[in-house]
């Protein structure tokens, strides 16, 4: 009989190119959580997320902000005594959540990732001065003022160019990308 893969099996499959042991060898020691600089800000620690995946708590995992707080510093990955690539798992969860368009309200991460990717597909390079303005309004009034002051100071020091750089062979570049995702429209 053919059965649907469980959520934990799906997540295992997400780690296609990742090196390291499968999630199921996790022994819940919590080294990942204790070494993670962003764990204090997450609603569930990395250790808890792995336990939740193993328990197939799909909706709870997708409702968590934990993987969006991962800055991919790989402290967990290099210290996991079972050799699990936890940071790559966090990447996998971000992809899964974007693919399903399912994530907690109010997060900037999903929108930022999409805009960033679109920019690279369009121009071949990232140009943060054009990306940041879409997000500074999320930072509250103090954050907004802070960001504006920083941007002005950078501009005055000549560190904020106004014109983004682009790849030269733009046509080839986009044809190349459309080979990977065949439905993407070539230029």
């Amino acid at each position: 009989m053919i059965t649907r893969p469980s959520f934990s099996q799906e997540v295992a499959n997400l780690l296609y190119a990742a090196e390291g042991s499968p999630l199921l060898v996790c022994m819940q020691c919590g080294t990942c959580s204790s070494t993670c600089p962003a764990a204090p800000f997450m609603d569930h620690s990395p250790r808890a997320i792995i336990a939740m995946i193993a328990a197939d708590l799909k909706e709870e995992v997708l409702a968590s902000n934990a993987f969006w707080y991962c800055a991919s510093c790989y402290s967990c990955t290099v210290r996991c005594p079972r050799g699990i690539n936890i940071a790559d798992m966090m990447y996998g969860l971000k992809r899964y959540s974007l693919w399903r368009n399912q994530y907690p309200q109010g997060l900037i991460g999903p929108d930022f990732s999409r805009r960033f990717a679109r920019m690279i597909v369009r121009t071949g390079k990232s140009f943060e001065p054009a990306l940041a303005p879409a997000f500074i309004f999320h930072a509250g009034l103090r954050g907004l003022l802070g960001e504006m002051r920083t941007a002005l100071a950078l501009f005055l020091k000549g560190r904020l160019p106004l014109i983004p750089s682009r790849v030269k062979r733009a046509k080839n570049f986009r044809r190349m990308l459309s080979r990977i995702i065949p439905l993407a429209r070539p230029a």
Partner: protein
Amino acid sequence: MKTYAYFPGCSLESMAASYHLSTIETARALGIELKELEDWNCCGATAYFHIDEILAHTLCARNLAMAEKEHLDLVAPCSGCYKNMYFTNAHLKKDADLAEHINLALSEDNLQFSGTIGVHHVIEVFVHGVGLEEIKRRVTHPLKGLRVAPYYGCQLMRPRKDHEDIEGPHFFEELLAAIGAVPVSYPPKLRCCGGSLIITHRKAALSMVRDLLQSAVQQEAEVIATICPLCQINLECYQSQVNREFGTELSLPVLYFTQLLGLALGIPAKRLGIGSELVSPELALASCC
């Protein structure tokens, strides 16, 4: 003169232009030619891996293939770019199926990945390629007693590449000592600067930056030396926001290691892009240079 294919990365074209200048200048002074890849593209940073893994590898592979065409090893000054291209190179060398898939795409730009080159970070090229003895020999203006916090950040050492000791590296300290500076003991030298969380989770990132700065102050560092544009931007450009957010009064200059190295090699500050900081290093540098 040893020649490398040079991949500046997107940040070095805008907010981190001084890293670009100082990398080129110091490399030249150390007898290394950096030949910029003629039509490089973004390495995908972290965000692209949120969207699609194979596409992210394709972006890196295009740069690798261009360097292969020149028969040159690739050098990146940004730790993020270095990490991405290092691992795409490693994955594609091991996974012939993935390489075939990506080569199909690369052929649209008349490129092929064949796995013939290596990928290095600029600091590795200086420390291991040129060597500390040679650097020491070329120092004309030692940074007499300047107390520097060596900040490695994440992506150079992690995930594990071919470095032996990823928990307690000391080559950065040795480099600083070779140019006459005093490397301070800096416990969080491998901790994360927050990376792109500075945009997506501002408060979390600011608190990570605050901890890094405070630790350097505790060690009486006069300047933090970085090897990555994102670390530099988070630690320096967001310092005023840290102060406003947490009521701290931090004012610690953050320079690229290439700028300090360049000064020690006798290159004028202006040619190293010194002077475009938001936290001026003038006072710290006045006593030593």
